[in-house]
């Protein structure tokens, strides 16, 4: 692979900073940046500007219930042993129920299969 000059590098450096270069072009720039402090500094500056542009993209309201659904999938990190020892067992049950609301209905029914009629 022929090595790029700084002039050639500058032609594609903005695309590299915007993360839209692919394949061979990207590899050539990377190789040049490895040896060139000036171009590396330039690309870092431009990448910061590219990130700031992404920062300006408009917000949007997600569908209803989005935050709760996502939060349910975020598992808490393991707690220190001292805290675990004191943690009530019920917490895990409750957490499982939140994660799987259908679980209660799938529990086996009692031996008599007794049901309270509703409505009476």
């Amino acid at each position: 692979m022929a090595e790029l000059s700084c002039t050639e590098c500058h032609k594609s450096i903005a695309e590299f900073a915007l993360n839209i270069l692919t394949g061979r072009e990207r590899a050539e720039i990377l190789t040049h940046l490895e040896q060139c402090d000036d171009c590396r500094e330039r690309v870092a500056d431009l990448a910061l500007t590219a990130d700031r542009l992404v920062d300006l993209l408009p917000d949007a309201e997600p569908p209803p219930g989005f935050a709760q659904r996502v939060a349910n999938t975020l598992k808490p990190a393991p707690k220190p042993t001292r805290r675990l020892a004191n943690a009530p067992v019920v917490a895990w049950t409750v957490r499982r129920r939140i994660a799987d609301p259908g679980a209660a209905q799938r529990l086996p029914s009692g031996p008599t299969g007794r049901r309270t009629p509703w409505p009476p």
Partner: protein
Amino acid sequence: MGAGDPDAALAFVRRFERTAFGVALTTLRDVGLAEDVAQQAFEQAWRQASLYDSRRGTVRSWLLTIVHNLAVDTARIRRPTPIPPSDLNDLITAIALSPEHNLLAGETTAELAASLRKLPPEQARAVVMAAAYGFTAREIAQAEGIPLGSAKSRIRLALAKLHAAIPPQAADG
């Protein structure tokens, strides 16, 4: 972050959900895909919370990078129908006006938005297609009906001008 009780997880998602979903929706232009990608980004950020380095930026911008990278990767796999010019113009307007809608916006953001407004329209389109949609120079050339070299020049000139407009050593980005 990334530790403790479920309330912390919910607070984390609530705080950033509009930002994360907004970026995913802008890049993907599909509500279902955007929801999936925003969720993946929250999961990744939560798992990798220990990698967050406060010296390199805010939690918001760190999360935004994760969402945007995932969204661009997803968009590249299933690039949908061409983007209508009016959608792109609306997006450029939204970006250019965003500091006026955001009371927390700092000097850097305002300067960047002002600079985007001053760009020749074809340069603004090129840099926004690259930054927001992750379009390559070739895709921009196709979308605009121009030679590849022209697309590359537009991207380069636009980003250089935007960069020059930001105050040096700005710390509020």
